[in-house]
């Protein structure tokens, strides 16, 4: 039996970039999985967001949960112009981080798109985020970028997988 998860694209930055975009995503899978390891090369006060299908409207809702070793917290972001992939746990003190995000039923046209993501660093804590894009359109592109406008440094990697169902 064939494996149910297939690599769709794998981007390793050869030079700094302000964003990474997966475009023309085929609709033949059920879920998408984004795995990223990255650095901004600077500092930890940065956040990663996603825009789906270039939608810049107030159509994103996110809820976060963070444990930082001494306390736990949760935050809600409604009607945002982007979906949060990291809020508090996305970058360590050297500006490095990693995340893994699941976009569920991304090609369905009868439901809003929901994603769940996890990230964490040794200095900032461990974080889980759930997000909803209030659109029934199939996801065909993902634009990943820094909320603060910083760049992803050379060597940052972004891999996208498709899960069959």
């Amino acid at each position: 039996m064939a494996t149910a998860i297939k690599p769709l694209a794998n981007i390793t930055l050869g030079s700094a970039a302000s964003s990474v975009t997966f475009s023309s995503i085929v609709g033949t899978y059920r879920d998408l999985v984004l795995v990223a390891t990255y650095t901004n090369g600077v500092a930890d006060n940065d956040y990663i967001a996603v825009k789906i299908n270039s939608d810049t409207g107030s159509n994103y809702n996110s809820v976060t949960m963070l444990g930082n070793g001494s306390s736990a917290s949760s935050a809600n972001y409604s009607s945002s112009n982007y979906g949060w992939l990291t809020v508090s746990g996305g970058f360590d003190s050297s500006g490095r981080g990693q995340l893994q995000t699941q976009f569920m039923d991304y090609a369905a046209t009868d439901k809003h798109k929901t994603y769940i993501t996890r990230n964490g660093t040794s200095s900032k804590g461990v974080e889980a985020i759930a997000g909803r894009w209030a659109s029934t359109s199939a996801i065909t592109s993902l634009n990943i970028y820094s909320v603060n406008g910083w760049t992803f440094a050379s060597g940052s990697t972004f891999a996208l997988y498709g899960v069959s169902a």
Partner: protein
Amino acid sequence: MLIPLGILDSAGAPGTFELIQTQLVSSGSPTSITFNSIPATYKHLQVRLTVRGAVASTATAFSYQFNGDTASNYSSHFLQGDGSSVGSGSYLSSTILVQDMPAATGTAGSFMTAIIDILDYANTSKYKTSRSLSGRLANQTMVRMNSGNWRNTAAITSINFYDFSASSAFAVGTRISLYGIKG
């Protein structure tokens, strides 16, 4: 093989992460979704789902049981963030509760999503454990991590998903997929 909730087979190697079955509610109103005759040929199971209830409520509880066992043989813990605070709790129950899913009077188009890992499901020398990460962003936001335990050493051969609080149906668009992970 490491099972980090969702990405299990990053190399795309053949035959290590396989689809067993998908059930999609495209019409009708099933009150449960059951996977039967699960083969014992894998090491672990993973369930990936987007679900919505049909009961006339904004939200209703999504839950599951193994092998048709409806007795109080389950326990679970959760850690959750609701947008303002983080909480934790536990249950001794006849089911493993994931979290609420939007229902008929909830925000249109919204579903709850979860990924559930069921570990060593065919091993007959240990109780069965599961874990999940789930989220919903309508009619109360919630991101939640769960652990579940079924106090039985039998191999898991069936999983039943249902509306725990209302015993009502799943809405059209609900999808649950079961995968097997080779060991």
